[in-house]
Structure formats: structure tokens, C-alpha cells
């Protein structure tokens, strides 16, 4: 092939291609437009992904949906620590995780009663075992069955404690303690309690809501105890709540840490009277839940989490550090 021919051919080719190139120019413009649209769509997909399955951000208060991957199941924080300069811990807790269910149990032994620590430990252990039995037996909970079940179990716990103290020839009244049970099932969240403390859950929109109203007496720090339960007083003393929703997180605490994480005292709208709004703090609980989710993403062991949580409850904030009352705070986050 001669050089001229090549040139001709190339020229011919170029010439013949010329109209196509003009088409290419148009197509390139279209491709650029399409690329821009794809980029825009990718950006939207990314935003949607972030909305649907974002990374937990420890410093933020809103707990994103999917903060904990579903395969992780329930992840949790649990600890009970003695109050500042308090020689003994009179709080006790249990946390039962079984499949899609989480049960949080908090008992606060009355500070002035000499066996209240033993009372709190007994009730926690008793109720923890009973609720685990129910879950394993496949009990289906509704608002009605929760009312019956919870009251029965609370009464049985009190009666079992009474029998034990009688067998040991001890004064049943000395074992007084409060009790909170928060039960998050597959499609409900329920609460039963006797006495003070706080409990709450995370609703679908990412807000923490209270699950109970503590029993408060006329005198400061006065409340009711498990040792006061009798068949006739059950309805009055065991307060109940049942919400048919699949909650993303639950929290239960004794009254010790409530001042740090719950809005419990403020003026009413008219500014004339101090009221208890009973509002869980999104800032506090949300940030803690996100830190738990972040730790879960790093595969932090439960032992390590428990130690960190114990340290936090002991001295994590000025109020917690100075609190003279015992502090128990359980938080479970569903994956």
C-alpha cells in the first residue's frame, strides 16, 4: 500500500466519518448529560442509603435507623454502681436477651432498710428467670395478657421473697425495693413497675418517650416497694404500660441517675409551678445509643462495654459523679 493511498484512504475515512463525528459530538453531549444525571442519581441513592442504613455518629443525638446491623440482634449497656461515698450498692439489675426479645429489670433497694440489697437481688433474679421462661415458652403478649402476666409475676416475686424471709426468720419489710420491668418484644414494648425510677423507649421517629410514671409520695424520696404488694393492692401498686410497636431501643434506670438523663423538674408553661415533665433526654440517651452502635461496629466485647459503662455511671458526668444515690442504667438497642 502506497503512502498516498493511505493518506487518501485516511482522508476518505475521515471525510466519510465527518458526519458521524458530528453525531458523536451530539452523542457526547448527550452522554455528558446522562453522566450528570447518573451522578445526580448516585448522589440521591447515597443519601437514601444514608437515611436507610447510615453509619452511627456518636456525637449525634438522633439514633439512625439501622445504626446497629440486624444480624447483631440486641446490643446493650448495663451497670449498677454505688452512690458517692456509699459503702454498699443497694441497686440490682438483670438484662435478658432472647431472640428478638429484650427484658430489662431494675430494682432499687430502699436506702434505710437493712436487707433491701438482698431484696433487690432476689426480685431481679426471680423475675429474670420467669420472663426468660415465658419467652422460651413462646408466650404471646397483648395488652390484656400483659396486664395479667405482669401483675401475677410481680405478686409471685413478692410472695417468694416473703416465704424466704419467713423461712430465714427475717422481717419481710426490711427487704423493701422498687422494681421496673421493660419488655421489648417483636411487635410491642411493655412496662410494669412498683415504685420510682424511670423507663423509656425509642419511637419510630427517633424520639425517646417515657414508659412509666414513678410513684412519688408526699414526702421527698418516698415511694412504694415490692414488699407492699398484696392481691388487693396489685392494681394500685403495679403500674402497667403496653404499646403495640416494634421499638428500636429501650432504657430503664433507678432514680439515682435520672437527674442526669431525664427531664424531671421544670416550670409549667405558666411558670408558676415546678412540674415533672418525665421526658427522657434525646441528647443524653441518643448520644449514648450512638456510641453503643459505634462500639458494636468495632466488635467491642460485652465485658469491655460493661466496664466502660460502669465507669461512665460512676464518674461520666458531674451529676453522676456526685450522686449519692445508687445508679443503675440499662439501655438496649435493637439491630
Amino acid at each position, binding site marked *: 500500500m502506497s503512502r498516498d493511498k493511505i493518506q487518501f484512504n485516511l482522508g476518505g475515512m475521515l471525510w466519510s466519518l465527518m458526519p458521524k463525528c458530528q453525531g458523536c459530538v451530539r452523542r457526547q453531549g448527550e452522554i455528558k448529560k446522562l453522566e450528570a444525571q447518573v451522578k445526580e442519581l448516585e448522589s440521591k441513592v447515597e443519601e437514601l442509603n444514608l437515611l436507610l442504613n447510615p453509619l452511627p455518629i456518636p456525637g449525634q443525638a438522633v439514633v439512625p435507623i439501622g445504626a446497629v446491623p440486624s444480624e447483631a440482634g440486641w446490643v446493650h449497656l448495663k451497670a449498677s454502681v454505688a452512690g458517692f*461515698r456509699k459503702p454498699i450498692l443497694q441497686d440490682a439489675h438483670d438484662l435478658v436477651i432472647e431472640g428478638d426479645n429484650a427484658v430489662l429489670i431494675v430494682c432499687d433497694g430502699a436506702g434505710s432498710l437493712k436487707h433491701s440489697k438482698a431484696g433487690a437481688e432476689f426480685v431481679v433474679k426471680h423475675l429474670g428467670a420467669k420472663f426468660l421462661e415465658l419467652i422460651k415458652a413462646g408466650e404471646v403478649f397483648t395488652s390484656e395478657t400483659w396486664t395479667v402476666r405482669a401483675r401475677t409475676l410481680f405478686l409471685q416475686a413478692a410472695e417468694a421473697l416473703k416465704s424466704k424471709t419467713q423461712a430465714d426468720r427475717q422481717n419481710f419489710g426490711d427487704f423493701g425495693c422498687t422494681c421496673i420491668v421493660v419488655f421489648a418484644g417483636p411487635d410491642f414494648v411493655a412496662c410494669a413497675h412498683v415504685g420510682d425510677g424511670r423507663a423509656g423507649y425509642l419511637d419510630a421517629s427517633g424520639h425517646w418517650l417515657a414508659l412509666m410514671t414513678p410513684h412519688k409520695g408526699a414526702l421527698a424520696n418516698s415511694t412504694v416497694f415490692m414488699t407492699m404488694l398484696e392481691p388487693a393492692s396489685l392494681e394500685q401498686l403495679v403500674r402497667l404500660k403496653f404499646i403495640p410497636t416494634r421499638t428500636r431501643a429501650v432504657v430503664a434506670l433507678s432514680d439515682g441517675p435520672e*437527674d442526669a438523663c431525664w427531664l424531671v423538674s421544670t*416550670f409549667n408553661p405558666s411558670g408558676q409551678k*415546678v412540674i415533672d415533665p418525665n421526658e427522657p433526654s434525646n*441528647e443524653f440517651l441518643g448520644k*449514648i445509643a450512638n*456510641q453503643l452502635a459505634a462500639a458494636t461496629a468495632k466488635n467491642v466485647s460485652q465485658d469491655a462495654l460493661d466496664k466502660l459503662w460502669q465507669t*461512665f455511671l460512676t464518674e461520666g*458526668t458531674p451529676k453522676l459523679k*456526685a450522686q449519692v444515690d445508687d445508679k443503675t442504667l440499662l439501655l438496649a438497642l435493637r439491630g
Partner: protein
Amino acid sequence: MYEKPFEAEEVQNYSQKCCVALVLDTSSSMAGDSIDQLNFGIQSFLKEIRSDTANLGQKLELGIITFDTAVTRVSEPKLAEFTNFKPLTVNGTTMMVDGVREGIKMVGQRKEWYKSTGQMYFRPWVIMITDGDPDSDQQGELPKLSAEIRAGMDEEDFWFMAIGVSGAKMATLELISHEKMEPRKLSGLKFSEFFRWLSSTIADVAKGQNVSDAMKKNSDDAWDGGFKI
């Protein structure tokens, strides 16, 4: 090992506040054991307030003013947990009248702030501690100061209490004090005992007890001979 500690912002629950202005003599005559014991007493006082989280820790707002050759607001009224107290040092003379007036001004300003933000409050306290007598150029102001304190006490604007340390001219303290709260003389340098008494008394007041009953209830001779109410 994962060691990132948990962190969270505390909720600010409302508590009715009680403002206490400590008006302290830091003139040269307080040098040595007096100022050391006073510093120690204040530090113990703050520690005790902080530990009483259910009551004083949330309610008592402490302000500190010193007077010597000048009057200084060492610390504006705030809860003990936010008070960063640095030991006081001594210097110069005794501008007691200006110091007390600054204390009255401080609690008055705090009251106005409570009012403007819709907060309820307990009647504030102005507590003056001195081991001397006002500078000569302040002596002429004493009758006026006495009248101001009397009016403030009668109108229930504030409580005024004068504490004399060894060397204090008690007649002056008597002159400026109201009969509802007579001046007291500190036994030796028992500042810590005094502040413990103050803490207990204000704690009772902050729980709703009236001042007279709270003072009687907590009265003992640990730091003086008791109160006459």
C-alpha cells in the same frame, strides 16, 4: 482493648436557687493561718455542696467577693460544680463598706436575673467575714451601710450575717447588723466548722425550712457560742 469512654450531655433540671455572696476580708492582717484556714474552709464548703447533689449542689449559687485595698468579684454566683476556686491571697487595707455593698449588689443582680428568667428563688444571703475594722475613710459610711442592711433585711431582700475573726471590731459588726441576725465571733480559726454549719443551715432552708428554725436547729458551739435569734 477498646477504651473510648462514653460521653453525654446532662439534662439541666430546674431547682429553686439560693444565692450566697461571701464577702471576705483579704487585708494584710488576715495573713498566715487566718487566710490559710479561710481558704481551707471555703474549699471544704464547696466540696460539701458538690456532694449534696440532691439539694445544695443544685440550688446553692455561691459568689465570692474580697475586700482589701480594692473590692474584687472573685467569682460570680454559680453552682459549686462550676465554681473554680483559687486560694485567696492577702493585700493591703480593709475596704469593708465597699465590699459589703458589692455583696448586696451581687445578690440583687442575681435576683433580677432570676426574675427576668422566670425562676423562683430563696432569699439570698450576704455573709461577711472580717478580722478588722473598715479603713478610716470608710468609717463615715458605716451608719449609711447599717441603714441599707436594715432596709434590705426588713424588706426581705436578703439576709446579712457578719462573722468576726479574732481581732475584728465587734462593735462595728454590731452596728451594721440587724437584730434578726446578730454578728457572731468565730472561735479561733474554726472556719471549717463555720462552713459546715452554714452548709447545714442553708440545706435546711433550701428544703423549705424557715431561716430562724434552720439556724436554731443547726446551732452548736463548734465554731461560736451559738446564735441568738
